[in-house]
């Protein structure tokens, strides 16, 4: 744990990542409670909080899902506790009902939600804009720009929450979470806020007549936001050209404006309090303007709110933003912002320096070397192709999201949100009784199983849908960095607890359950095909630890996998690069000089499945002493994405022999 998180050194300037700044802010706010479900780009926040929770005297948990997390925070608030809920964009949508109800009821102890958006969906299935939830639920919304603001806004939000009696939403984005910047530390409280016994007549109830008081809170907030320290204006007194920016747009905009040399004549309004709109602060700048450019991530949230304000005030303005001057999708970057500001100010666009001759090759995302999911989806494709009518496969969210691409043999037809798979499959499975002549398969990970699959599982089993749910049990919330879930026997605070047994749960629910090892390709395919033929609700648990866990094991028990190139058929008839092209493990590469298969000893983790699949028996597995100490991997755990799946990202060109 970084010293900066818990150091009681007010005034000390530290270099901090945005996620660390959130943690530091929470510690400075003296939180009593923190709950989250992992999701990029904010996955690290609760992991860090869990590690310092005991020392700082608060409770932290990786909740089973976001609804559990927010509602637990609501409980903490009722006892006057300060509670921090950390979610990603999809998590916030998942928790929408809980949020709207809690917002109408109001809070006692401060309740702050940090929702991290992933513009361009680097680590997500989609880009959503969390800010609409603030508008819809009628709660205040803040958005920091710098690491300092990120840290400072947390205690500010808690104070605001308690003063107004309302949940506060802080929206951050990937570049804020993962960027680094200087942060001046504030003082740490002696101890967390004092809890208060819940009194007999305390009420936090969502009833219709609370709608009015909730709206009153917004009015009160509007007034506060008109002179909030998080809103700034720079530029001439009465600008004709005005830029309004929130979040990353502020820094990109300021930089671009200076670059174009138009910072003196252009007004720049940075907003940190986005909802309710600080109308009194914005209007004076708006009145002199003729052209207004809005810089914000994802949706035209501010743009529409300010257009509405201008309309109400009868102002005739030209608006530039997501609807015209900026790309309608994808995250902002200095280039698109510069182009938009050039459009606003009429400044000539500086010539772009060429970045280099070679374009980086675009490489599809794939499962790790040795990932058990690869084997499961390989077997699933084989099984589905053996059906008289190819079956329908319904996807879900996790690492296995990538199964929709070549990594999973283009496994599925649909993929929606976490937990959707079992329900979409239930719908199809019921229709198999009404003339739909197809097998229906869906899947979930072990973390997702607890997150949102359970109700769907109960529904499908109770109504006896004809379907197969494959639980990809790799004993990990792998994609977000191995956060514990109820199946692991660990908690965020490091306690060992009794793990939940998935087969026992399934058994109690009453569906047919079998467990298979995806690396045992022959037996597992038989099991899979047998279960596909069974009517009713079937669950197949494909159990094999995550490959990244295997990497750690391998340093203890090294395995060497290699290709006998004299036997290998290469791209000849009878093989056609079966290991590297079809099986597709990153460990199975290609020897361009000899036109034969090759195993990359650095990437290979020694699962040995390719040896079982090689049509000519050319791949051998040898257990023995380490052949190459470089294959030992570190113990680091990477945070990547979570509730998530990623898009294709450019990968560095391969060099040397393979070029």
């Amino acid at each position, binding site marked *: 744990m970084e010293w900066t998180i818990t150091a009681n050194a007010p005034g000390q300037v530290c270099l901090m990542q945005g996620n660390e700044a959130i943690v530091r802010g929470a510690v400075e706010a003296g939180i009593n409670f923190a709950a989250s479900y992992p999701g990029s780009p904010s996955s690290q926040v609760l992991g860090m909080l869990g590690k310092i929770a005991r020392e700082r005297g608060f409770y932290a948990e990786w909740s089973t899902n976001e609804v559990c997390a927010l509602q637990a925070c609501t409980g903490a608030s009722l006892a006057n506790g300060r509670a921090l809920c950390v979610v990603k964009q999809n998590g916030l949508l998942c928790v929408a009902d809980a949020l709207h109800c809690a917002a109408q009821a109001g809070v006692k102890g401060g309740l702050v939600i940090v929702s991290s958006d992933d513009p361009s969906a680097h680590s997500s299935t989609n880009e959503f804009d969390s800010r609409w939830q603030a508008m819809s639920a009628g709660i205040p919304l803040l958005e920091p720009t710098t690491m300092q603001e990120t840290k400072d806004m947390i205690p500010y939000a808690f104070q605001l929450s308690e003063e107004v009696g309302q949940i506060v939403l802080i929206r951050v984005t990937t570049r804020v979470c993962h960027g680094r910047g200087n942060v001046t530390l504030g003082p740490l409280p002696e101890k967390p806020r004092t809890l208060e016994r819940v009194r007999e007549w305390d009420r936090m109830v969502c009833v219709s007549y609370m709608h009015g008081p909730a709206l009153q809170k917004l009015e009160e907030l509007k007034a506060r936001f008109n002179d909030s320290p998080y809103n700034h204006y720079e530029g001439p007194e009465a600008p004709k050209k005005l830029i309004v920016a929130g979040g990353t747009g502020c820094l990109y905009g300021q930089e671009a404006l200076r670059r174009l040399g138009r910072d003196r004549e252009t007004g720049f309004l940075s907003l940190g309090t986005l909802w309710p709109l600080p109308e009194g602060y914005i209007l004076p700048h708006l009145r002199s303007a003729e052209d207004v450019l809005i810089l914000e991530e994802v949706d035209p949230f501010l743009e529409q709110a300010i257009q509405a304000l201008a309309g109400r005030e009868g102002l005739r303005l030209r608006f530039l933003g997501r609807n015209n001057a900026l790309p309608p999708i994808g995250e902002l970057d200095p280039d698109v912002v510069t182009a938009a500001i050039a459009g606003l100010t009429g400044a000539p666009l500086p010539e772009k320096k060429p970045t280099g001759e070679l374009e980086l090759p675009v490489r599809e995302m794939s499962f790790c070397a040795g990932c058990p999911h690869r084997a499961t989806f390989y077997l699933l*494709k*084989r099984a589905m*192709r*053996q059906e*008289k009518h190819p079956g329908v496969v319904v996807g879900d969210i996790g690492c296995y999201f990538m199964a929709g691409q070549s990594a999973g*043999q283009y496994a599925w037809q649909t993929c929606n949100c976490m937990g959707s798979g079992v329900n979409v499959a239930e719908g199809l499975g019921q229709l198999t009784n009404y003339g739909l002549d197809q097998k229906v398969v869906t899947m979930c990970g072990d973390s997702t199983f607890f997150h949102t699959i359970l109700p769907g599982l109960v529904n499908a089993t109770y109504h006896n849908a004809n379907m197969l749910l494959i639980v990809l049990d790799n004993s990990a919330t792998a994609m977000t960095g191995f956060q514990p879930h109820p199946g692991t026997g660990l908690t965020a605070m490091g306690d060992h607890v009794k793990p939940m047994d998935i087969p026992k749960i399934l058994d109690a629910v009453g569906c047919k359950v079998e467990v298979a090892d995806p690396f045992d390709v022959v037996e597992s395919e038989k099991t899979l095909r047998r279960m596909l033929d069974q009517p009713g609700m079937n669950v197949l648990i494909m159990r094999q630890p995550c490959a990244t866990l295997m990497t750690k094991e391998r340093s203890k028990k090294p395995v060497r996998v290699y290709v006998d190139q004299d036997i290998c058929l290469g*791209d*000849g*008839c*009878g*093989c*056609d690069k*079966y290991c590297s*092209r*079809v099986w597709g493990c990153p460990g199975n590469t290609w020897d361009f000089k000899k036109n034969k298969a090759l195993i990359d000893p650095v990437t290979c983790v020694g699962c040995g499945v390719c040896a079982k*699949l090689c*049509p000519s028996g050319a791949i051998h597995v040898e257990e023995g002493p380490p052949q190459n100490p470089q294959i030992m991997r570190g113990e680091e755990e990477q945070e990547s994405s979570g509730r998530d799946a990623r898009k294709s990202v450019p990968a560095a060109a391969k060099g040397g022999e393979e070029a």
Partner: protein
Amino acid sequence: MLSTIALDTQVLRPGLCTGCGACQGLCPYWGSVDGRTVCFFDCERLDGRCQRFCPRMPTDLDALRKQFFSEETVFPEIGPFRGLYLTRAADASIRAGAQHGGSMTALVELALQEGFIDAAVLTRSQGGLGPEGVLAVNSKEVRACSGSSFQVPPTLAVLNQALRENKFHSIGVVGTPCKTLAVYKMRANPLPENDNHAGNTGMVFGLFCGWGLDWDGLNALAAAHANPENVSHMDIPPSKYHSLELREDGKTVSVNLDEVTPLVRSGCRYCADMTAEFADLSIGGARSADGWDVDKGWNQIIVRSEKGQKLLELAREKGVLEFKEAMEGGLDKLKKASLGKKRTAVKNLQALTGKTDDLGYLNPSKDWFQDL
């Protein structure tokens, strides 16, 4: 075109596949389930043995025939011909388990014993439901394959595997016309970079064939009329009986042929070969002009090659087969039936392509067929 896509678009989707297995046992891309040929994954090679061996990919039958048979023996209706015989196995125990006269079992057994072949790829009928290809290396294993099935299994997958292992060097093959044609296509070594040891194929024993049936369809039909587990034999008597007979626990259950004909495998409707013209010997049930009973329990054999002739003579010498005087007009009757199948195939192919001058996979031999 990519190999797997070529077979998929030109053979599987148009319904031409016979399920012979010629494309299987070679690579991890092709397999078979319940008589259905299945592509597991796409191969990206432009050429491959699967499409080269497939009996439903375009083939110049005339050129292939010239490569392996002497031209003067060829009858247009039934292919290479050196003689027609009526025979049955002399051993009554072979006849007891046979479809007709057990001549095939006796001849394959003899060929193995006398070193004509060192192994044989056969089909074990399993009573007619769920047959499978086997590699037999002794008499016992050969005899276990007596009897026919109307479900055609991918027997050639077994041949391909055996050839790949390169353990036997003269593997005999017993098969329906689609399968024997595929074996000769293999022998022609169409993909020089990988011949799969096709030179190790030995004598080819063809089976007369009218059509095979859809696996699921026949399974359902059998289940509707009997307990499929107890069905030990199936046969179709001459056309005047208009029935399929199932033997269940020794009793015969007769099923109206109208229930059977809709189950004919799509690929068989486009087959122009009744007598397995690519073979050393072709064997079928004897069909006498005088009715079922006269020749019941006898086979008719067309000898097509010198080697076939030699084996048959040896069988006569050794008393392995009993011979009966062939009926007068038997050959003409056979020619007529064979021609009928060819005409039907041409008609069905024209309907499939929608053009009278487009015979699909028979196009390279179009002249031959259009003269029929």
